[in-house]
């Protein structure tokens, strides 16, 4: 049989690739990230305070914080599932993008999503504050979306959105405002998570900003758009619209908590580090955090008490989350299954995960999927291999299949969620008859060695004419 696929780097197989945005996103995925702001900061000499959840005393280990619903609270029955979902979300600490959902089938347009608000308030009750200026600044409208800061010597917030015109981005001109937002020194990107999160990789000092940046960027949805992520906003960013759900965390939310988890020395991997587990304990007022529709808040609020462990660290004692009954609340009735411990990989041919037969000239599509589960954000190698009648091909970093008898990595970077991502949309015309097996694999490390730790394959057969 005449070889149709020449033995050279360029091959026929990938030439009709639809360039997916999957790999460009990965290519832009520089392994750095951004963290946020902590509660209890009121003064210039408190800007670098870190607040810890209930029970932390400086010793490392697992910190269990109990969460309950006030037994006599209005809506107590309906609150249970969304509260459990919010608890699981914080426990899993999975950074996501695309977490803003505006869909009448998810949250009716004129209602406020209780789960999203509970997730935000729980964040406060474990020590996180707003990454934006928010209500505590006294500002109105869009000015609340500038990055959290204390006004400097001029006693006023200096607000200039900079050349890019986006409030909260890295080129904002803030005069003598004192930054409160921990940012990654390498990148100043709130939507990317660093491998190590502690004071060696994050800073409050504007002197540590990457070149060209003027202020810490925050997790606002317009900042995310500027940085290439649609429909994404930090859960701790203040401000929610009716009909909107924001039920998963972004990198900024995760990194803020992980910075706290690095302990009093603010170094990850030392003895004072802790992990946090929120535990739902039912309907009781005897818990570390209690949720209640008691109308103490105008909408929703978390009130925490705490004590200073030293000048720079506060430990929460007790948290109470209040909700106002004056709004139409939507209670998610569906318990979200926990994220898988191990990544789940998928690959489909013409939307099928089983072997199929194709004629010459038939449409041929390949899609990959990845649920990173608890390994979201972990550094990994991505591989796509095609075993064909004329040899082995690998997808390279230029998104082309190349003929190679040794593995060629498609990309190295953090594990992210992919849902039905197209890597080929073409026809079988020009491809030799025979059986093809396509494997999509991710590893549990990033060392450019093909481990195919988590992999899935699908086959298709092109029938002879």
């Amino acid at each position, binding site marked *: 049989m005449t070889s149709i696929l020449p033995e050279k780097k360029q091959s026929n197989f990938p030439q009709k690739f639809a360039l997916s945005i999957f790999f460009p996103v990965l290519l832009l995925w520089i392994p750095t990230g951004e963290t946020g702001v902590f509660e209890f900061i009121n003064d210039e000499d408190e800007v670098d305070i870190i607040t810890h959840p209930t029970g932390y005393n400086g010793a490392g280990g697992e910190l269990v914080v109990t969460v309950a619903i006030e037994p006599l609270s209005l809506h107590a029955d309906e609150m249970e599932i969304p509260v459990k979902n919010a608890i699981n979300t914080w426990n899993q600490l999975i950074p996501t993008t695309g977490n803003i959902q505006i869909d009448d089938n998810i949250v009716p347009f004129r209602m406020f999503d209780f789960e999203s608000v509970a997730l935000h308030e729980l964040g406060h009750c474990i020590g996180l504050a707003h990454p934006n200026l928010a209500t505590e600044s006294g500002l109105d409208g869009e000015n609340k979306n500038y990055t959290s800061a204390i006004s400097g010597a001029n006693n006023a917030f200096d607000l200039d959105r900079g050349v890019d015109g986006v409030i909260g981005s890295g080129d904002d001109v803030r005069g003598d405002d004192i930054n409160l937002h921990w940012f990654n020194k390498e990148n100043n990107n709130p939507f990317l998570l660093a491998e190590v999160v502690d004071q060696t990789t994050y800073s409050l000092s504007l002197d540590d900003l990457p070149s060209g940046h003027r202020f810490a960027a925050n997790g606002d949805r317009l900042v995310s758009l500027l940085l290439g992520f649609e429909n994404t906003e930090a859960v701790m960013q203040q401000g929610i619209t009716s009909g909107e759900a924001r039920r998963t965390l972004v990198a900024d939310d995760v990194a803020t908590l992980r910075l706290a988890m690095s302990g009093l020395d603010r170094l990850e991997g030392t003895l004072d580090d802790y992990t946090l587990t929120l535990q739902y304990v039912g309907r009781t007022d005897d818990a570390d955090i209690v949720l209640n529709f008691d109308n103490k808040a*105008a909408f929703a609020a978390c009130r925490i008490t705490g004590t200073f462990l030293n000048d720079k660290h506060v430990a929460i004692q007790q948290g109470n989350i209040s909700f106002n009954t004056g709004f139409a609340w939507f209670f998610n009735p569906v318990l979200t299954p926990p994220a898988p411990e191990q990544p789940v990989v998928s690959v489909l041919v013409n939307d099928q995960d089983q072997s199929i037969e194709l004629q010459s000239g038939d449409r041929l599509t390949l899609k990959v999927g990845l649920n990173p589960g608890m390994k979201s954000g972990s550094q990994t190698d991505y591989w796509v291999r095609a075993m064909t009648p004329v040899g082995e091909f690998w997808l390279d970093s230029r998104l082309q299949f190349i003929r190679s008898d040794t593995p060629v990595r498609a990309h190295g970077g953090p594990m992210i969620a992919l849902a039905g991502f197209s890597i080929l949309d073409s026809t079988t015309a020009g491809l030799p008859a025979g059986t093809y097996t396509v494997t999509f694999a991710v590893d549990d490390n990033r060392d450019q060695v093909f481990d195919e730790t988590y992999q899935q394959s699908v086959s298709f057969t092109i029938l002879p004419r």
Partner: protein
Amino acid sequence: MKAFVWFQICICVLLALFFIQSLQAFQGNAASNPEDLLVSYTEKNKLVQPSGQDIKISVYRDGYVLIVLPEAMRGGGLYHTVLEQEKLDALWTLLTDNEILAFDAQAVREMIKKERRLMKESRAVVTSVSDKTEIIIEIYPNRYSSQELEGLADEDHDVIRHIVWTGLRWDAEQYPHIESIRLLSEIQRELLSIFDRDDLQPIAP
């Protein structure tokens, strides 16, 4: 029979007069003169987007109260009622207390900050509240009674006391010993209690 018919007619006329008067009472007040505004209370809910989701309560000299409930809230819209004289008097007493008229937000904030610093230094329990609401109270201290208005120049009539505070409910709970905060909280309670009145009527759009 004739007497009974006349009786019915009289009852109908009386009822009609009653309803017309009530309607006129509200209609007359619905066009209340802004110069008769005594106090306006605004609760700015900045957590909810889009911005502008504020509760507003305006109380006038004749006791007329106009309430704006934001669309984001259940039953959003306009409402009104009329306060009894004694209620209005009680409210006015609170509003014109010296602690209120002389309220210095910056000084109170400094006081709270100092207290907090002491608590921090002594490792006492400190409190933090997220997502607090801002309230704005505007009082016209020279507008209440006719006697107060007589002899006042126009500019004195319009003297306004403007108070802004964030997290009042929580601060009142935590700092009950700060008299001005306590009084502000009482004013807030009095104004918000108007929502519980049976005679609170929606205003048709």
